[in-house]
């Protein structure tokens, strides 16, 4: 099947290095300490952060840093076929772990000992790149909750189909059987914090594809920064400053 046609356009009309449309909204869940909705094309996720708060399970409490917990769930209606079991399956457990480790590396946990930070991510619509959208949403939600972080964590995926590196795969491109590289990136510190890949990729192409994902992450970081600035301006305005 042709994923990049001879004119250089993908299945949804994008160019190989073009990301899907981004949209973010802060403060979607009123009861949470911080929350955000993040959309990458048709993938839509909502993240809520509760914390820092008292540790529920005393045996997990740490005296010198905060405990970070994360749960990733997909809504029944998020995928094309109805999912019967929204939580607890292996893929969800793995992605919960991945998001937790990525965010934990970035939060200044030593500033909040003996406390717990819960990150809940719910996928409302899945069209490829849910992992990345969740990390981006979690970053926004953590910022909205005012939790101190080293840097913004952004994430983007890239692949290699029809001998072309492609940025930000959607579901069709992801299920094509080609490689799917997910990168989590700290833009200011210029460090890669998450790197996952499946399928096969020639060694000389790996660097290229990974670099493309990193560029995607940087673009997302710029967007996230804009959204946060706009949100702060709104808050300032509402406070009458």
């Amino acid at each position, binding site marked *: 099947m042709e994923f990049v046609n001879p004119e250089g356009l993908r299945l949804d009309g994008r160019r190989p290095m073009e990301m899907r449309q981004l949209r973010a909204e802060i403060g979607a869940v009123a009861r949470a300490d911080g929350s955000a909705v993040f959309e990458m094309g048709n993938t839509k996720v909502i993240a809520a952060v509760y914390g820092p708060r008292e540790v529920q399970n005393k045996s997990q409490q740490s005296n010198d840093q905060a405990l970070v917990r994360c749960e990733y769930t997909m809504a029944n209606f998020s995928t094309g076929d109805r999912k019967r079991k929204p939580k607890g399956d292996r893929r969800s457990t793995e992605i919960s772990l991945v998001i937790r480790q990525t965010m934990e590396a970035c939060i200044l946990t030593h500033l909040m000992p003996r406390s717990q930070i819960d990150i*809940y991510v719910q996928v409302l619509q899945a069209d490829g790149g849910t992992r990345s959208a969740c990390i981006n949403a979690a970053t926004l939600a953590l910022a909205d909750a005012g939790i101190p972080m080293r840097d913004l964590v952004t994430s983007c995926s890239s692949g290699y189909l029809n001998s072309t590196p492609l940025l930000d795969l959607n579901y069709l491109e992801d299920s094509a059987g080609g490689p799917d590289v997910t990168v989590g990136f700290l833009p200011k510190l210029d460090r890669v914090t998450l790197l996952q890949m499946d399928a096969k990729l020639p060694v000389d192409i790996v660097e290229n594809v990974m670099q493309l994902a990193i560029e995607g992450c940087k673009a997302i970081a710029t967007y996230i920064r804009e959204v946060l600035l706009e949100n702060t301006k709104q808050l300032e305005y509402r406070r009458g400053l």
Partner: protein
Amino acid sequence: MVGLSLGEKHFIKGGIDQNIRSDGRKRDSYRPIFVETGIIPQANGSARVRMGATEVIASVKAELGRPSALHPDKGKVAIFVDCSAVAEPTFEGRGGEELSAELSVALERCLLGGTSGAGAGIDLTSLIVAEGKICWDLYIDSLVISSDGNLLDALAAAIKAALANTAIPKVNISAAASGDEQPEVDISDEEFLQFDTSAVPVIITLTQVGRHYIVDATSEEESHMSSAVSISVNRKGHICGLTKRGGEGLDPSVVSDMISVAQHLSELLMSRLDSEISAAEAEGGDEEL
């Protein structure tokens, strides 16, 4: 949920006694209701309803299936509620299962009638394609995103809006079959039938606090209710279902009074919902153009 102090409890209760609640509402006023339909493109119908800070999403998916042997002329509808951890940290893992099950059963009772399908708010015979062989199975999935009390009313409103937004593809039976054979069907991509929701009821939950009852309780108010009765009323003013929650017993005359209050309020809520839903549908239609 942060606990309430004794002073706060007295304040809330005293306010309700004087017909002024903490957010300025009267005992029988609803919070502002926002409805958005068609938010999930891959579902047959979907809606998002916000009542104050309570936010729920409902989606309807239609799949072809076999009708049950007991009711060969009826389609099937299943309602599932999922309480997301995003709404409450206590819903994490299996914490929300009990509440989800309670809400699902209450909704099924109010919208789907008895086990024989009698008195259902949704007309199941309209879902049949080939009697005894093929019918539409509707799966209504709802997700609670933000919880600030009155989940049942919000869920019922979201399901009503999602059903109004539901378009079921037209099915043409291409080859007749005899006996047990499944007929071949051709599912149209172009023609759709809008679901008829005129008989779908709304649910009004009346929460008793002290000696009075309030409608559309916030989670603060719900936290020290003595009991709550959820009544499902349809457009004709008929009662379609009843659920009582909470430990304290209710005098039978109080229950009858609650029912008449609910019937009265249902007219207002129904008309409000209808106008919100048609506004949302119109907006969705405009966007498509």
